């Protein structure tokens, strides 16, 4: 059985949490005691039906305000697939929390209120989805029951969103009319929308192909930790522990260690203490090399014939996530996988207007949730790929060394 990681995004009151509640409820992933607990809480509400949103709004402040503040992770499975679902906040001030959830997602469900159509938040969420390279987008047009299940309403929103999608270069967009509250087109196809010839949402989630997610061509192995037992029997053992982020490795591969450029050969590969001859992307392994060379955390082991770019100058798309504004010339720590280097944001080329998708050249200020194109200079060389080709070695975070906060998400171009 494989695993699909997905995120749901939408604006306030689009019914996102209700949709998740519905998916969990209809796939029988809610337990009786959890249901009783939310029934108890919804008793005082007027219409009597239970409020499924209470399943994901796990914080007191969220329940008080009736909004989602931070990502909630939910887990469910069907006989076909296992799902990890990140419920993202819709509020503009919590956009950085959406970015957190979206960074690991294979698929995004973008919710649109059928009565409101495409709004600023829809565009913002779509920009984030495109920027983070989420491969599959499902546009769920919700609250169809409130527009009499009208095909015209659906088609107009579809046409409107198609414009945004093409501007952003989003491919594989699937459109689906739903009513999360009533369960229409969620697990079963709705009887109220015979004009819709697609599949139900759950069917789509179960059958989306995940092959394109992994880069199998460019072997990358960032070293996290060096294992040195230093016992009598294992006196010379040096194991380089890490997770293969892309590609495959075989015993006997000629390798290069970056940034130093040292060369050696893969002597052994171990997974969980067992020796194997081959390992591939997403496996946590331990390498031993034929030569005793200096390797430590933050280095990256690649194959000699396929090397990433070694550079001190990066061009990045950057999502700013701190309340303090970003100014050109500010210094931060840039962390890429296990490597952290000092860096300076040199030039801010443009800021993206989330409504018009226009590029505002040389913006005066960059604030919370702004998306910009910038150049970064690092104190030491870093080995990187371009984000669209290789997510893991193409992404990094900026850390403010005075507050230790994570303040920026960088996608290397």
């Amino acid at each position, binding site marked *: 059985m494989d695993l699909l990681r997905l995120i749901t995004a939408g604006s306030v009151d689009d019914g996102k949490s209700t949709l998740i509640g519905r998916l969990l409820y209809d796939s029988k992933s809610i337990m009786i005691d959890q249901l009783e607990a939310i029934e108890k809480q919804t008793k005082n509400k007027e219409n009597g039906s239970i409020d499924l949103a209470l399943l994901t709004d796990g914080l007191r402040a969220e329940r008080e305000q009736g909004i989602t503040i931070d990502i909630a992770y939910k887990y469910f499975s069907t006989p076909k697939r296992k799902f990890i679902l990140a419920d993202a906040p819709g509020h503009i001030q919590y956009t950085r929390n959406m970015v957190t959830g979206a960074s690991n997602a294979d698929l995004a469900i973008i919710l649109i209120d059928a009565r409101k159509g495409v709004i600023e938040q829809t565009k913002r969420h779509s920009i984030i989805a495109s920027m983070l390279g989420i491969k599959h987008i499902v546009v769920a047009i919700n609250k169809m029951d409130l527009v009499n299940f009208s095909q015209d309403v659906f088609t107009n929103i579809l046409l409107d969103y198609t414009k945004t999608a093409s501007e952003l270069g989003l491919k594989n967009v699937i459109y689906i009319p739903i009513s999360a509250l009533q369960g229409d087109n969620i697990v079963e196809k709705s009887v109220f929308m015979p004009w819709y010839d697609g599949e139900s949402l759950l069917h789509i989630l179960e059958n989306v192909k995940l092959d394109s997610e992994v880069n199998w061509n460019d072997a990358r192995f960032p070293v996290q930790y060096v294992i040195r037992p230093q016992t009598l029997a294992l006196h010379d053992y040096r194991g380089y522990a890490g997770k293969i982020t892309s590609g495959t490795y075989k015993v006997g591969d000629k390798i290069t260690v970056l940034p130093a450029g040292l060369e050696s050969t893969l002597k052994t590969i171990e997974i*969980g203490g067992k020796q194997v001859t081959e390992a591939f992307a997403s496996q946590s392994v331990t390498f031993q090399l034929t030569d005793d060379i200096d390797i430590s955390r933050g280095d990256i082991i690649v194959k000699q014939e396929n090397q990433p770019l070694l550079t001190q100058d990066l061009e990045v798309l950057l999502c700013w996530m701190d309340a303090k504004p970003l100014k050109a010339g500010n210094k931060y720590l840039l962390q890429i996988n296990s490597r952290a280097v000092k860096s300076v944001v040199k030039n801010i080329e443009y800021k993206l207007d989330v409504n018009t998708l226009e590029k505002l050249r040389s913006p005066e200020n960059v604030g919370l949730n702004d998306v910009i194109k910038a150049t970064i200079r690092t104190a030491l060389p870093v080995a990187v790929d371009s984000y669209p080709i290789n997510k893991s070695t193409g992404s990094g975070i900026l850390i403010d060394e005075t507050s230790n906060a994570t303040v920026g998400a960088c996608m290397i171009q």
Partner: protein
Amino acid sequence: MHTIEYLDQLESEAIHIMREVAGQFEKPALLFSGGKDSITLVRIAEKAFRPGKFPFPLVHIDTGHNFPEAIEYRDRLVNQLGEKLIVGSVEETIREKGLTVPVGKFASRNALQTFTLLDIIEKHGFDACIGGARRDEEKARAKERIFSVRNEFGQWDPKLQRPELWNIYNGRIHKGENVRAFPISNWTELDVWNYIRKEKIDLPSIYFSHERLCLSYQEQLVAVSPFITIDEDDEISMKRVRYRTVGDMTCTAAVESNATTIDEIINEIIATKTSERGETRIDDKVSEAAMEDRKKNGYF
């Protein structure tokens, strides 16, 4: 092209997180309760660091109200592993700090554990504690990051969590703060059991069906022990039970079961209609935000 089974993906993710803790912190620790989740963490640590030693000790917060079977298991495991164990005694904290011990029928030391945990963290200078919490357990936990920063009082601020992107973990902290790291955040109860089956992991005997004298209280079965108060009209009887979670004897309820093997337990869990904590934890029912409040106060 390769495909990787979801359980292998979860294992690999957990190993990655544990190695990040080892790589980023000076003095980490692994919180070990004797329950299946922390036992799973130990297996993950073996996979992450063997043939080397663990780069951290195991830390057990002993409330004095543990199941004897869990303590016995703990000592056996530590002996087999050849790793260091640090035990923090709640009993001692109560004595040294003059804490007020809760009273009542099932007087639980659950809240007092936090004092001992924070003491141990301070005494040993731990900057990161690895825990076996899972996001599917409870709705406040569903909100927590994998690297969860706590202030010098061990407190969690749910409104001020760091963005956590891709598989990059920011473990930078100021002196006095610490990080709680949760490698099996993305596992469900069933994932843990499937992993235990796959890895043939030995568990404390109380996870399997056995005869036990139980008190029936509000549809829950509480083990008869010196730590609870028994009243005259209490309904006490011998039951065939197993435990679905292992906490203190005062706040963990048993479930009726004949399951004596992992396969049988997994079948029962697939068929159950009640959540893990809902069925077995007496301490979560206090209020809607019980877990959130405890976490804000430094609970792991």
